[in-house]
């Protein structure tokens, strides 16, 4: 199975709603009461993207990058964090063969989130610049259709923009591990939701018993770059209950050049 088939991005069919406008829990949303589509309070969502990107896409707020329209969008300091705390919901298809394992991967969430899959809850730790990989093998539906709801919380310290603006507003955002331009800078108006959202790729990856994790490639050079070595280290995880006898191979090919691939 090629790597592309092994990993599929979950970037379609997402809907979103403000958490305060949804009366169901995450467990209910992913079992008995899933949203039926982009009908109020749900709307089509941009994933990857931010809460504000979704609100702009649905014309719930004006585009902040035209004229002084940013002034017409309520800032999180005035609205409170709940106003920009949003549910994101989608379904995805994944059906496993025997001895296959499945991970649900988030490459970036700002700032923290509760993930519900088919009624099971996982709390994602805080931090904008970290990946999350959840082993969901045991909670996928046998028929392959899976319901995913993510409740995304804004940064803990969104701060308040002083009347005079300035570099980084009141600097509160610096207490969190997140991008700092969002309180505004001399070249940039403040971002009202502080970039809250599932801001990077969501994917599903399917592997056999052993998976490859974060290989590291390093080259060393000798004799004026004539003699070169490629050093490769990788982590391997065996999720099965038996010792896995493996053959691990590394294959280096030059880029496709004029349709010829040199090995």
């Amino acid at each position, binding site marked *: 199975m090629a790597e592309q088939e092994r990993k599929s991005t979950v970037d379609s069919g997402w809907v979103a709603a403000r958490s305060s406008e949804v009366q169901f829990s995450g467990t209910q949303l992913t079992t008995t009461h899933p949203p039926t589509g982009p009908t109020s309070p749900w709307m089509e969502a941009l994933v990857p993207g931010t809460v504000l*990107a979704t609100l702009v896409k649905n014309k719930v707020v004006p585009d902040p990058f035209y004229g002084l329209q940013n002034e017409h969008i309520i800032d999180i300091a005035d609205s409170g964090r709940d106003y920009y705390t949003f549910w994101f919901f989608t379904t995805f298809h994944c059906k496993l063969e025997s001895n296959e394992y499945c991970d649900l991967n988030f490459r970036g969430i700002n700032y923290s989130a509760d993930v519900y899959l088919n009624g099971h809850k996982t709390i994602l730790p805080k931090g904008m610049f970290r990946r999350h990989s959840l082993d969901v093998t045991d909670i996928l539906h046998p028929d392959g259709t899976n319901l995913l709801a993510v409740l995304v919380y804004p940064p803990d310290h969104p701060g308040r923009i002083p009347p005079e603006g300035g570099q980084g507003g009141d*600097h509160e955002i610096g207490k969190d591990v997140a991008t*700092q331009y969002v309180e505004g800078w001399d070249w940039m108006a403040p971002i009202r939701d502080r970039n809250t959202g599932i801001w990077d790729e969501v994917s599903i990856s399917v592997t056999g018993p052993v998976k490859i*994790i974060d290989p590291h490639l390093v080259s060393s050079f000798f004799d004026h770059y004539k*003699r*070169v070595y490629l050093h490769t280290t990788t982590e391997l995880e065996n999720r099965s209950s038996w010792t896995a*006898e493996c053959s691990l*191979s*590394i294959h280096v090919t030059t880029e496709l050049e004029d349709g010829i691939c040199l090995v």
Partner: protein
Amino acid sequence: EHLQTQNLSVPAKSRVQYTFPELFFSKPNLWWPNGMGKQSLYNVIINIDVKGYGESDSWNHHFGFRKIESHIDDATGGRLFKVNGEPIFIRGGNWILSDGLLRLSKKRYKTDIKFHADMNFNMIRCWGGGLAERPEFYHYCDYYGLLVWQEFCITGDVDGRGIPVSNPNGPLDHDLFLFCARDTVKLLRNHPSLALWVGGNEQIPPDDINAALKNDLRLHPYFEIVDENNKPVG
């Protein structure tokens, strides 16, 4: 000679680290920054087969053979870069981020980064108040030969040197900062365009964070090449 297979056992319910015996290349095509030569990229594919199951996982990444060194030049006080032993005059641009609502797209990255290459730039500096940029950003920097100076999310204005002075000790949770920094390094470290990690913009991170970053990011002694005077090079 560019295909190597090793047999190993991975115990049940465990996680192991494995290092291949190094692969030898004779005069490989080197990766050069924009304006200095070709951005030769190799495709590195790692597969793992499990007896009784078949192929269990695979991974691939474009890789460029290049050696990037930099140090503070005594004569100018500036940072002097060398690529594959050749000094390079850095023509760089500041980069905040692609879109303020994080509508990040490969198409936009390709356009923006090709634009920098067309402007004859050879470096992009990712400002600490923006993002740890994404693999798609680095892919196009690899492809068009833009070296990347990547700052961690610390800025002078917000962390200890702004008006009012605030967060002199950086973010509240240093362990969280270091976890995120390490995970970001793992996400980006195989890109040939990644030239320099920088603690922050106009500010040195708090001592404990700075010491940990320096320790984590130092060149592993295994790769420390010394010159005839036993002085580390690179």
